[in-house]
């Protein structure tokens, strides 16, 4: 599948109808999501025929992208049942077959080894400090092959240090810097739309 085609399909997905600010529910835009998964597959071979988990899947954009790129199995995990419902409708609409688990990522009891690749757009930790690092820590325990994640560019040094020194990553590389357009979803947003700089990361866990 071509990148443009992937982006087009993701653009048609249903997004949060009543986003919950405490969970930092922001949709992952089709531009970012398509590039994330396209790169994961075409540069690194981390998607097709793999078991992919989408952490904090929300409406399932990243998971759907993985399924469209022929991941053998995709598991979406989110704390919020309404999000999981939208995610499963999105998958159904495209006749994709995905699995879901309702769980807080930091409490997730998932055996390592089976999941090859974790993809995620974690909460950036602006509401709940450290939420993004909780996600990364668990992702690096569970993925056997690679973790793809988005983090604010302003936290780059911190993310790298945490991944390599505390979360057992053998490598942590910024693949590219992207603009994350945050639409005016919540009342406290003063501007109609703002762009923030985010890094697309690829982390490799140490082999067990």
């Amino acid at each position, binding site marked *: 599948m071509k990148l443009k085609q992937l982006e087009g399909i993701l653009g048609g997905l249903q997004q949060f109808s009543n986003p919950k600010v405490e969970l930092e529910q922001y949709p992952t835009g089709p531009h970012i999501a398509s590039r994330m998964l396209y790169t994961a597959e075409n540069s690194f071979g981390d998607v097709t*025929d793999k*078991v992919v988990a989408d952490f904090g899947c929300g409406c399932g954009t990243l998971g759907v992208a993985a399924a469209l790129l022929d991941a*053998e*199995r995709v*598991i979406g995990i989110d*704390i919020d*049942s309404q999000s*999981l419902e939208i995610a*499963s409708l999105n998958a159904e609409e495209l006749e994709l*077959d995905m*699995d*879901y*688990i*309702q*769980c*807080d990522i930091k*409490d*997730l*009891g*998932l*055996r390592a*080894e*089976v*999941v090859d690749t974790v993809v995620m757009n974690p909460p950036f930790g602006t509401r709940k400090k450290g939420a993004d690092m909780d996600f990364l820590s668990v992702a690096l325990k569970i993925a056997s092959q690679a973790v793809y994640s988005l983090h604010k560019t302003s936290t780059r040094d911190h993310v790298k240090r945490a991944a390599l020194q505390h979360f057992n990553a053998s490598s942590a590389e910024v693949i590219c810097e992207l603009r994350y357009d945050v639409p005016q979803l919540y009342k406290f947003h003063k501007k109609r739309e703002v762009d923030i700089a985010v890094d697309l990361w690829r982390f490799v866990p140490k082999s067990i």
Partner: protein
Amino acid sequence: MRLLTHNMLSSNIKGVTNGFPLRIEIEKVVEKQVDFNADFLRNMFPKIEWKALVGAALTLGYVELPEEVEPSRLDSEDFLRKFHHALLELHLEEGALVCPETGRRFPVSKGIPNMLLHEDEV
């Protein structure tokens, strides 16, 4: 919920040391057909906790899986088809997963296990 998911999930309640495998309580089981991919199954086999899969499949009423598997069985399409069916086509649609240590029930609704913990469990 597929048995593949069941084979990965454990109870992560604070203090629980052996939360795997979760016991299964059944209200409704469904079967959904999935494309057969022998390479994927061979690759997956060593990562699966076999005993847990056999037990879960039995609970769901599927009795075709052998208790022990010789590596040579992975060449047999007949075996792989059974493995495929148990791992990917059987779904617990409604029911619960039960922590083997504490008996805490995690409900499964519309095929989605709810593994959220209470405040005093984390």
